[in-house]
């Protein structure tokens, strides 16, 4: 049979149309299946490590440095006198600088100058993780904002991003500033950023963080914030607690009972 030019154009147009429709149908089906997968994926987080700091208990021990000493010894944190070079994992700051929003004009009479223990907040949405160009810092499934010092290139973006000043840069080699070396934990080298790791190396062995174990007043309470019956969650139900700068939306995992 002989095909006319008109028939040929009509046929080829129809087949192109059919092919395009099939592609479109496949794409729509693929997207809808991907959507159902992503909807089912986020399972309720079963572990989110967090800490509650009871400032009423902590205040009783004026001049106590048990938590800081324990942490520094466990993690080979150097003690450097020069404040521009110092490295801190858990440290203290005066109450009024930690919670400026609580000031009502009279509070400083009772609370001014009281040292508040501070550490990395292990935020729910950590800004340091967002800015790290090498993924040297990332958020683990159990909520710990972890650091891989092997990967850190020392750009200090994370330090600029962290609103809590929880991160320190090693401007100098930290080893000479160490009084005692804990052989089981690495030191850091010059040029990397470091911070509190919630003692993930102890958690892996079923132990609590060293600061928690060291506190003579049991002012630091550590546990799983995702478990409603955990120790910190029970405390948070009973007492009024604040986080540091919650308005920034970082979702700190460290709470303070004031």
């Amino acid at each position, binding site marked *: 049979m002989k095909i006319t030019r008109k028939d040929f154009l009509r046929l080829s147009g129809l087949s192109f149309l059919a092919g395009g429709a099939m592609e479109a149908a496949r794409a729509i089906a693929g997207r809808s299946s991907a959507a159902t997968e992503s909807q089912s994926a986020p399972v309720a987080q079963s572990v989110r490590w967090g800490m509650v700091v009871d400032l009423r208990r902590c205040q009783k021990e004026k001049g106590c440095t048990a938590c800081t000493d324990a942490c520094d010894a466990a993690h080979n944190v150097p003690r450097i006198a020069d404040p521009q070079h110092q490295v801190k994992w858990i440290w203290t700051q005066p109450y009024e600088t930690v919670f400026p929003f609580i000031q009502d004009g009279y509070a400083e009479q009772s609370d001014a100058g009281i040292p508040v223990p501070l550490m990395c907040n292990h935020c729910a949405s950590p800004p340091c993780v967002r800015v790290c160009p090498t993924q040297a810092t990332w958020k683990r499934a159990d909520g710990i904002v972890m650091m*891989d010092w092997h990967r850190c290139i020392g750009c200090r973006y994370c330090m600029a991003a962290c609103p809590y000043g929880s991160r320190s840069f090693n401007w100098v080699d930290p080893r000479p500033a160490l009084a005692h070396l804990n*052989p089981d934990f*690495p030191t*850091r080298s010059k040029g990397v950023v470091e911070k509190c790791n919630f003692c993930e190396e102890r958690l892996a062995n079923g132990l609590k963080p060293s600061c928690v174990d060291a506190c003579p007043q049991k002012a630091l309470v550590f546990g799983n914030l995702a478990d409603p019956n955990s120790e910190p969650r029970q405390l948070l139900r009973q007492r009024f607690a604040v986080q540091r700068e919650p308005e920034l939306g970082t979702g700190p995992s460290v709470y303070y009972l004031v």
Partner: protein
Amino acid sequence: MRDRLWIIAGLVLFLAAITAPFWYRPAHARDLAKLPELVLPANQRQCVAPVSYMRASHMVLLTNWRQQVVRDGERKYVAFNGRVYQKSLTATCLGCHNKEQFCDRCHAFAGVSGPYCWNCHNASASRAVAASADTTMHSPEGTHLTENLPPHILAVLASRPNTSSPGSRP
């Protein structure tokens, strides 16, 4: 033909010069070519992987361990023979090996300028005591260090009378 003497003398000198690497060996080169005397662990006879693998690929294993421990939180290593080890440079590797007498000597010999592990990881944590001389690679038990070396290297080793020979190999 008046230049015959000069030409022959020049040729002899030229041949001597280009064959020099084959016949001239200064005294210090002899020491350079000597295999390092590695002190093997006294407390263990088997590493976490076969010797041939460790010799060629210990850096791969260490990098994998680092990745798995730091980033994935996996701290247990099941070895080829079913034994379970802690993935740790300072606890497991240095628990047997002595850094100065094992790692450093071979790295110096191979011209591998030290990896930067030790900038942070504490080598003084080594619980491995300096082993006695009978566990060096000169001993019968130690000869397995030269097993699985490429044949051309074995041939070189065998031809050298003053360095440690690869033991029973022909």
